């Protein structure tokens, strides 16, 4: 009974180095207890400055109206909705890691799920800003909620995809937050029990809800996590499906297509994993967590990137083919002239998207490149840019040339306040992420402990003899007996 579970030697360890339970706690909780580094302060201040710039941009937009953005006739959606879809998509990787990989019993998720889930929550917060401020008269934003009112009551239109979005995004945010925080409780209790100062004890005591680690509580916690994972899995698929309905249920050429839901979901996971890579490669280095977020983790995520990138590529080509095959002249015009023609005003964005999302991730078929940190970091940025352009292509190239050539738009380019708003959401995202990295355990401590004895490097090494002995014994007993 020295080992409760057994995992083959062939599997790469998920936790490197010579670790015991206490060491795991030390490694992960230590950065919370220390003063943050210079680098942290620099990053944090830059984020806050960006956030303030965003706040000012939004202030301009609210005061002077939507005209502060360069949106114009036929281009009703520009950078704002592009950014909205981009941020929502980024959120999806967190849920995929924490929920879908939990259901698939992928042990490697334990190293990255906490940070990825935090990323989800912050990304959805950023995404939510765009449709809200785009309303223009934002003080009436509560009109999207179905509440009894003195106008009839005049209810919201439940048949509209834009309202589905309201429900999808708010549900997604709530459920992700609950899932993330319920997972955090035991780890916050660990921080609380190690706290030296009164203030830390008090604050982490409040935050950890009085978690004790009782066996019955763990049993319920496991059940809760499993069911929340089961709920989040269809939820995450539904969220980007519904976001794609914003386009797919319209009759705009370039949007009116049934391939959008799966195509959007794959793209979301693709871009989300790229963002997870960008963040975690920095986090593991700065916080010294290389033993927990190993090259194996990065490799596994790059595999997801090459898979989803190829699904996205397949979707692009299918879409193009169907536009031609479907014999709808308007649809085909959008694809042939507005997108695929490199000399049209936005043709370059289509080819940039193709290159970043379809061609470049193919590098990851090579194991060597998948396990190269510099290449991965660079690629993650490329993919993020590519996925931003995907949304830009879908939105802008479909609407800038109307059915009526006389109302074709002049060249659309964003104003400084439109860009400022986008930068502001970066500020919001990174401000939140820096605070998270400082005050919360960025790796799920309890979950790492639960896989330590099966997947820890030092424990796996001990297994070698047992494994060899077992196979020899098995051979003697089973194979030789048979003859």
């Amino acid at each position, binding site marked *: 009974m020295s080992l409760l579970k057994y995992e083959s030697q062939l599997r790469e360890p998920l936790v490197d180095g010579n670790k015991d339970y206490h060491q795991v706690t030390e490694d992960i909780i230590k950065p919370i207890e220390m003063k943050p580094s210079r680098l942290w302060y620099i990053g944090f201040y830059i984020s806050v400055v960006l956030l303030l710039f965003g706040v000012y941009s939004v202030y301009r937009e609210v005061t002077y109206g939507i005209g502060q953005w360069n949106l114009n006739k036929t281009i009703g959606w520009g950078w704002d909705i592009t950014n909205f879809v981009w941020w929502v998509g980024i959120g999806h990787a967190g849920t995929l890691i924490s929920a879908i990989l939990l259901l698939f019993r992928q042990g490697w998720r334990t190293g990255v799920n906490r940070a990825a889930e935090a990323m989800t929550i912050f990304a959805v917060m950023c995404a939510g800003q765009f449709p809200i401020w785009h309303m223009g008269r934002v003080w009436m934003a509560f009109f999207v909620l179905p509440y009894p009112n003195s106008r009839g009551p005049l209810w919201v239109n439940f048949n509209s995809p834009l309202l589905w979005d309201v*429900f999808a995004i708010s549900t997604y945010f709530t459920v992700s937050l609950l899932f993330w925080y*319920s997972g955090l409780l035991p780890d916050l209790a660990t921080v609380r029990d190690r706290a030296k100062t009164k203030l830390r004890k008090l604050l982490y005591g409040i935050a950890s809800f009085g978690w004790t680690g009782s066996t019955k509580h*763990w049993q319920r916690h496991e059940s809760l996590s499993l069911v929340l994972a089961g709920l989040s899995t269809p939820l995450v698929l539904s969220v980007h499906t519904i976001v794609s309905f914003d386009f797919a249920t319209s009759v705009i050429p370039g949007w009116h297509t049934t391939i959008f839901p799966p195509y959007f979901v794959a793209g979301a996971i693709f871009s989300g994993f790229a963002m997870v890579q960008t963040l975690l490669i920095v986090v593991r280095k700065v916080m010294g967590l290389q033993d927990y977020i190993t090259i194996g983790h990065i490799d596994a995520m790059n595999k997801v990137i090459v898979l989803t990138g190829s699904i996205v590529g397949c979707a692009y080509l299918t879409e193009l083919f169907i536009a031609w095959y479907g014999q709808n002249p308007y649809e085909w015009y959008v694809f042939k002239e507005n997108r695929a023609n490199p000399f049209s005003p936005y043709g370059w964005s289509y080819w940039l998207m193709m290159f970043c999302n379809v061609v470049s991730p193919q590098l990851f078929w090579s194991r060597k490149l998948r396990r190269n940190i510099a290449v991965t970091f660079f690629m993650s940025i490329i993919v993020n840019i590519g996925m931003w352009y995907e949304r830009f292509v879908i939105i802008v190239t479909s609407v800038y040339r109307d059915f009526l050539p006389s109302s074709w738009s002049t060249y659309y380019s964003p104003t400084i306040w439109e860009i400022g708003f986008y930068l502001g959401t970066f500020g919001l995202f990174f401000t939140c992420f820096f605070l998270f990295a400082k005050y919360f355990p960025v790796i799920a401590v309890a979950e790492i402990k639960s896989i330590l004895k099966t997947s820890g490097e030092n424990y796996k090494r001990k297994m070698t003899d047992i494994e060899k002995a077992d196979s020899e014994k098995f051979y003697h007993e089973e194979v030789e007996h048979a003859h």
Partner: protein
Amino acid sequence: MAGGIKKFVVGSFEDEAVLFPAVKNVRKAGYKIHDVYTPFPVHGLDHALGLRETSLHTAGFIYAITGTTTALTFMTWVFTKDWPLNIGGKPYFALPAWIPITFELTVLFSAVGMVLTFCYLCQLSPFIKKHHFHPRATDDLFVMAIECTDKTNDSELQQFLERTGAKEVNVQVAETGWWLGRYDRDQKLYRDEKGY
């Protein structure tokens, strides 16, 4: 409802491989384990303690169907009774168009309901004060607490725990409250469970 001042014999174990036989031996000897506090979910420990399965997921299902019916009845009432809107000549009862919202509310009700139920059942709340038997129970120790009754011989029990492999054994007096829970109550006695 648990309450008042209670005495516990507390033994801390360093390895779950020692903990499992210890749990078995303690229960075999006829003691009722109040609870075992662990830094991470130790699989099979709930069974070793004779705890019944949780029915939290059933609660989750009930919340889910509550969400489904709420969404469907509300939208039906709004669009067929309260204020029917003609949207592109489509039927007032537009069921397919309501599926997304119905689904979202199903998930929302289930998740929120389950988390609240979980917090209620496990006595989790921001400002609760509990007695923690060992600060390292959330770090690297597996802490077994046995409640003393009038008949318990503490020193004998302490020695017994040490023999089963506990690294640290002590007696603690704790002011308890409703938060303590009574998980030992649904724990069957070892002999009833194994039938010997």
